[in-house]
C-alpha cells in the first residue's frame, strides 16, 4: 500500500496568491473558510502578473502562464521509541531495536498552482523512507467557475485519491493528523500486521476518476465521483500470474463515491456536517501460489458521517472534528470459509480529533480512534475480532508557520488478534500496550 503524505500547506499557493499560511489554514493542513473557497474555486486566485498571456477576438483567454513555476517541498522526519521492540522477524530470539530515526521519514516535491484562469491543480511526488520508494502521491487537476454573485460555484476535477478533493478535514482522505499511527504499522516493522480500516480509506494513489461538484451560497456542497483502478502499487488493473501477490488485488469496474456537506459560518466560528460513501467491488489476489485470476469478487459499501467545528480567532484556534464510518463487506462465496469465516462482515470506526493552538505557535492535539466489527477468525486470526482502540496525545511548537516540531505519544488500549504484530509473530505475552510509541517529529515546507 502506498503511504500518502497529506499535502499540508502548499507553498506554491502562497507564492501565487501572496497570502500567508494563516489565510488558508488554521494550522496546516486544516483549512479555514477562505482556504475552502480557494480550493473549491480551483486554486486559481492569483495576484501575480502572467509572464505569457494571450486572448482571442472575444477577449477570452487562450493561454496564461505564471512568471514563476509553482514548486515546493514538504519534509517530515521522525524519531520513534516503541515501548517494546517491534517483532521485525518471525525467528524466535532475533534481535530487534526499540527505536528508529528517519531523516526524512517522507518528503515530497509538489508542483501546484493555477494552470489557466479556470483550471488549477497539484502534483505530488513523495519519497517514503520505510518502503524506500519514490512515487506519485496525491494528484488533482480541477476546473471551477462561479456565478458573478458567487452564489453558485461548480467544478469538475480528476484525482487519484477518493475524498482528497474534499475541503473539510474531517474526511479520512484529508486528515488533520501529521504523525499519528506512523509508527509500527507504516514503518514496515510490523511483520505484515495491519489495522483494519474501512476499505475506501486505503485507495489513495491506487485509483483514479472524475468528480463533479457544486457549492451553493457558501454552505451546501454536493459532489459525485466515480473511480477506476490504476496500475499502481499493489492494486493492479489486471490479475495475472506475474501480478498475483498476497494482499493485492484490483477494483472491479467503476466504483461510485459521493459526498454531501453543509457548512455554516458565524463570527469566528465555522461548523459543518457531512456524509460520504463509496461502493466498491474488489477482486482480491490473496490466494498465495494461485497463478490464475479466480474471478472472486468482494463487495464493500462504506458510509461515513463527519462533522467539523472550527474557531478561528485572533489569538486562539480550536477545532473539534471527527467521523463515524460503517462498512458492510460481502465476500465471494468461493472465498468462504477458507479466507473469511463469514459471508458478510461489518466494521465501525470512530475517529475524533480536538486541536488547540495559541497564536499559531503553541498547540496540542488529542485524537481518539476506536474500531469494532464482526469477529472473523479466518480473516483476523485468534478470536476473530478486528477491534482496536488508541489515543494520540500531541504537543506542537511552530517557531515559524512552516516549521513544526511535535512530540507525540500513541497509546494503544486494544489491538486484537493479527492486527497486533506481537500476536501475529507469536511474541511472548503480546499486549496492546506493547505498541505504545513516543514520537518526536519535524515537519516543514518551503
Amino acid at each position, binding site marked *: 500500500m502506498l503511504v500518502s503524505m497529506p499535502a499540508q500547506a502548499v507553498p506554491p499557493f502562497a507564492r501565487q496568491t501572496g*497570502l500567508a499560511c494563516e489565510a488558508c489554514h488554521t494550522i496546516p493542513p486544516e483549512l479555514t473558510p477562505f482556504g475552502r473557497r*480557494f480550493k473549491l474555486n480551483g486554486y486559481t486566485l492569483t495576484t501575480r502578473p502572467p509572464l505569457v498571456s494571450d486572448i482571442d477576438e*472575444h*477577449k477570452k483567454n487562450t493561454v496564461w502562464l505564471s512568471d514563476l513555476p509553482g514548486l515546493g517541498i514538504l519534509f517530515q522526519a521522525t524519531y520513534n521509541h516503541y515501548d517494546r521492540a517491534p517483532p521485525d522477524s518471525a525467528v524466535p530470539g532475533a534481535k530487534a531495536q526499540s527505536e528508529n530515526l528517519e531523516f526524512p521519514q517522507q518528503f515530497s516535491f509538489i508542483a501546484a498552482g493555477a494552470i489557466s*484562469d479556470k483550471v488549477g491543480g497539484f502534483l505530488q511526488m513523495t519519497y517514503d523512507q520505510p518502503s524506500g520508494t519514490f512515487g506519485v502521491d496525491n494528484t488533482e487537476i480541477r476546473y471551477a467557475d462561479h456565478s458573478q454573485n*458567487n452564489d453558485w460555484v*461548480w467544478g469538475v476535477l480528476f484525482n487519484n485519491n477518493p475524498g482528497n478533493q474534499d475541503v473539510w478535514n474531517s474526511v479520512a482522505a484529508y486528515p488533520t493528523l501529521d504523525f499519528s499511527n506512523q509508527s509500527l504499522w507504516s514503518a514496515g516493522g510490523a511483520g505484515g500486521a495491519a489495522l483494519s480500516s474501512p476499505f475506501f480509506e486505503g485507495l489513495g494513489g491506487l485509483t483514479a476518476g472524475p468528480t463533479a461538484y457544486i457549492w451553493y451560497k457558501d454552505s451546501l456542497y454536493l459532489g459525485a*465521483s466515480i473511480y477506476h483502478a490504476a496500475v499502481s502499487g499493489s492494486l493492479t488493473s489486471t490479475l495475472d500470474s506475474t501480478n498475483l501477490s498476497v494482499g493485492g488485488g484490483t477494483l472491479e469496474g467503476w466504483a*461510485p463515491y459521493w459526498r454531501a456537506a453543509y457548512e455554516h459560518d458565524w463570527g469566528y466560528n465555522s461548523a459543518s456536517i457531512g456524509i460520504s460513501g463509496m461502493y466498491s467491488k474488489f477482486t482480491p489476489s490473496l490466494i498465495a501460489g494461485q497463478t490464475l485470476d479466480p474471478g472472486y469478487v468482494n463487495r464493500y459499501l462504506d458510509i461515513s458521517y463527519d462533522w467539523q467545528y472550527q474557531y478561528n*480567532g485572533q489569538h486562539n484556534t480550536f477545532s473539534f472534528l471527527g467521523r463515524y464510518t460503517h462498512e458492510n463487506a460481502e465476500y465471494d462465496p468461493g472465498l468462504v470459509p477458507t479466507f473469511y469465516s463469514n459471508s458478510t462482515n461489518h466494521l465501525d470506526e470512530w475517529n475524533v480529533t480536538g486541536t488547540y493552538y495559541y497564536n499559531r505557535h503553541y498547540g496540542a492535539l488529542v485524537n481518539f480512534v476506536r474500531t469494532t466489527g464482526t469477529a472473523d477468525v479466518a480473516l483476523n486470526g485468534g478470536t476473530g475480532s478486528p477491534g482496536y482502540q488508541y489515543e494520540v496525545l500531541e504537543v506542537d511548537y511552530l517557531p515559524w508557520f512552516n516549521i513544526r516540531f511535535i512530540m507525540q505519544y500513541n497509546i494503544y488500549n486494544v489491538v486484537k488478534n493479527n492486527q497486533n504484530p506481537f500476536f501475529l509473530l507469536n511474541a511472548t505475552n503480546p499486549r496492546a500496550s506493547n505498541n505504545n510509541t513516543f514520537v518526536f517529529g519535524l515537519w516543514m515546507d518551503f
Partner: protein
Amino acid sequence: MRRLAVVTLLIVAAIALASTAVRDAQAATVVVPPDPSTLDATQLVSNACSKCHGLNGVSTSPLFPILAGQVPGYIESELRLFRQRGRSDPHARAFMWGIARALTDEQIKGVARYFSSQPAVKGSESRNPALADKGKLLYENGTPERDIEACTVCHGHNGEGVNSQPRIAGQHRDYFVLEMVQFRSGLRENKVMQHVTEKLTDDEIAALVEYIATK
C-alpha cells in the same frame, strides 16, 4: 449496484455539461481575463475581496473589517499602503500585502467605489447603556485635560467618517478593539491614532466600542 455506478456516472456527466453550458452562456457577456491587473473592480471583488469581506462588504468573521459604506478615500489610501507595504500590522502582512501587490490605481479606485456604495451596516442597541454613555461622552468630547481629542473631529458625529478618515460605525466590535490596541502599541503605524490611543485605557476603549456599536 451496477445501476448505482451508472447513475453516479450520469450525475457527473450532467453536472459537467451544465457547468460548461452556464460558462458558455456567461462568456458572451462577461470577459474575465486572468491577468489580475486587467480585472475590473466588480470582478476583483467577486474573485478575491468577497472571499473575506463578503460580496456586499459585510464580512462574517471579525478577523476582517466590514467595508460596506466605508469612505472611498480611506479604502483607497489603505490599499495604496498595502501595495507599497507601508502598513505592517500582522493581518496587513498576512492578507493584504499579497492581495494588493498587483493592483493598479484604477482598480483601487474601482474597488473603493464598489464597497463605499454598498449599504452600511446599522448598529444595534447597547446591552450596557451605562458603558455606552461613557463612550459617548468620550467620543464626542474627548478628554481635554489628558490631551485626548474628540473622535468626532475625524470620524463624524455618528462615526460615519469625514473626508478620507474612516467610517467606524457598524464595524465588528472585535476588529475595532484590535485596531485600537494595535494603534496604541505602534504595531499599526499611524501617528495621529497612536497619539490618541496611547492615552486610552482598556476600559475607555471598551466604552468607545460599546457606543460606536450603537451607530
